[in-house]
């Protein structure tokens, strides 16, 4: 198996998360010290030079996000860590928080210094209750050791962190739904603008970043933005933590330089399909990612290359399925997920996912017609164009991509009523 390059996972497994002393012995919180010494402007420049793009799914440049919040005036500003990790097929944030909670806290404090925020929130999904005490202990230890709290490193900079729990709603991973949820409301996405960078948590300028994004920041500060940018393979920048799931021999969470090919990840890292089965297809990027077929997997894993290849970079999920699986059953499963998780605020998503699910079930039963395929296509386009948030905009992707890449499966069901 190829050697991993661990940056987001730099200290996972290297220290006991209960012990801040062990973390500091590895060089922990040195990034924060250096950040405070170098000043806001230089700090944001390093993060921009790093070409660090958010790893929560939307791939927004982190340096640019921070500079907007830094430039926005506000008495109170916040840093919010999106630890809702509800995307089926993503486990990376759990691995980071379980093994190295302090790098996350350090990254949050650095973000706080960069934008002028003195308060941070970690929105932890309900399904990770075992991590609640781990994070609270880490925060407590960091306060006692002087890495959180008032006047850090003798400067004017103050920063503290609070953990709040989610309630088991996938949509709360969407940044504005998450803010609503912290504010004690139903997790329904807001209309944008205003963006959180201007009016976020409790109406204040807010930076929202994913766990992985924040956990990488201390290494960037310590080693420089150009160092991180130079790590990728070829012209690619940085690393990505991938979650490999499904019909693979070596499922798991691995960090590799961006630019590693999907085939390498599936075959070399994942070990291919178990029990001598053949690879049929793979969904990349999460439950709302594209589903591609076995002949399409030779491209480098990065945002633009994925898009060009008809795949999705997203959160770095790679869900592999072998030739014993029924593609339409997987699509039906994904639509059940979105139908269940749609918050219901807007019609294209609330009604659209239900209708997509009905149509796929009809086709699977053998009652579908060619007209149904056109209806599917139309409806998917409407949902993409008209849904309020990313959930409704992206949920038709598995349907659109399978209509293209596995069209024969649909046609077979329709023409032969599903009989092989």
């Amino acid at each position: 198996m190829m050697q991993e390059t661990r940056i987001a996972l730099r200290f996972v497994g290297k220290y006991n998360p209960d012990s801040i002393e062990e973390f500091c012995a590895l060089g922990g919180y040195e990034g924060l010290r250096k950040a405070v010494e170098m000043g806001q402007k230089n700090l944001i420049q390093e993060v921009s030079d790093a070409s660090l793009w958010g790893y929560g799914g939307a791939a927004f440049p982190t340096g640019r996000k921070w500079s907007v919040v830094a430039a926005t005036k506000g008495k109170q500003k916040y840093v919010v860590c999106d630890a809702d990790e509800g995307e089926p097929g993503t486990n990376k944030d759990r691995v980071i928080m379980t093994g190295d909670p302090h790098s996350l806290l350090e990254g949050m404090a650095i973000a706080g210094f960069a934008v002028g925020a003195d308060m941070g929130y970690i929105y932890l999904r309900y399904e990770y209750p075992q991590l609640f005490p781990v994070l609270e202990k880490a925060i407590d230890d960091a306060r006692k050791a002087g890495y959180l709290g008032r006047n850090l490193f003798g400067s004017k900079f103050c920063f503290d962190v609070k953990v709040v729990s989610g309630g088991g709603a996938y949509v709360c991973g969407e940044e504005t739904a998450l803010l609503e949820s912290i504010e004690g409301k139903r997790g329904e996405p807001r209309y944008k603008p205003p963006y959180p960078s201007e009016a976020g948590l409790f109406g204040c300028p807010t930076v929202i970043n994913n766990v992985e994004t924040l956990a990488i920041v201390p290494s960037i500060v310590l080693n420089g933005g150009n160092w991180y940018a130079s790590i990728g393979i070829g012209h690619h920048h940085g690393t990505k933590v991938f979650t490999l799931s499904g019909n693979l021999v070596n499922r798991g969470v691995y960090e590799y330089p961006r630019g590693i090919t999907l085939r390498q990840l599936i075959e070399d890292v994942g070990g291919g399909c178990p029990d001598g089965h053949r690879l049929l297809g793979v969904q990349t990027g999460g439950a709302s990612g594209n589903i591609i077929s076995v002949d399409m997997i030779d491209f480098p894993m990065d945002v633009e290359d994925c898009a060009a290849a008809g795949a999705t970079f997203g959160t770095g999920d790679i869900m592999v399925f072998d030739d014993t699986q029924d593609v339409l059953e997987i699509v039906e499963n994904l639509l059940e997920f979105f139908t269940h998780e749609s918050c219901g605020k807007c019609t294209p998503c609330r009604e659209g996912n239900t209708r997509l699910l009905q149509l796929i079930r009809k086709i699977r039963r053998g009652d579908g017609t060619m007209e149904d395929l056109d209806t599917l296509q139309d409806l998917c386009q409407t949902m993409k164009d008209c849904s309020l948030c990313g959930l409704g905009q992206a949920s038709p992707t598995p349907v659109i991509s399978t209509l293209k890449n596995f069209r024969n499966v649909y046609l077979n069901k329709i023409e032969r009523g599903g009989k092989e």
Partner: protein
Amino acid sequence: MQEESCQTSVDLSRIAAIAGRYKDEPDQLMRILLEIQSCCGNSIPREAATVISSVTGIPEAKIWGYITFYAMFSDKPRGKYIIRMCKSAPCHIVGAQAVAQAISEYLGIAPGETTEDGMFTLEYCECIGMCDTAPAIMINDSVHSGLTPESAVELIKSYQQGGAE
């Protein structure tokens, strides 16, 4: 059904006490409700919204709207242990259905139901972040993964014998 007693006045004062501790902190509503749910037999009685409202000043309808939005809350009494069986795709394609069926058959209840002795409530849930060792389930706050139909039934048995917590 067990834990009906959560609707007695004693428990209402307990609910008021929990809500009082987080008064004037809007970011703590989730915590208030999770605590109330865990001390009220894994469900939130209708009266709780009235009590929380009178203590915190948040309108009752807003609280009830909040409770009904989040999947982890229930207004119906549930068992001592809630078994949440993941049905999302990465679990589904590696045998989650067979695991769910084995648990369901062993306990003699369908998802959404509670065993007669009030021990277990069976529910489906979406991804619990254990896809790399799927199939996975949660029993209250504990996560169990890498399950087979047989090992899942053994696991439930260990809860019945009081050996696991």
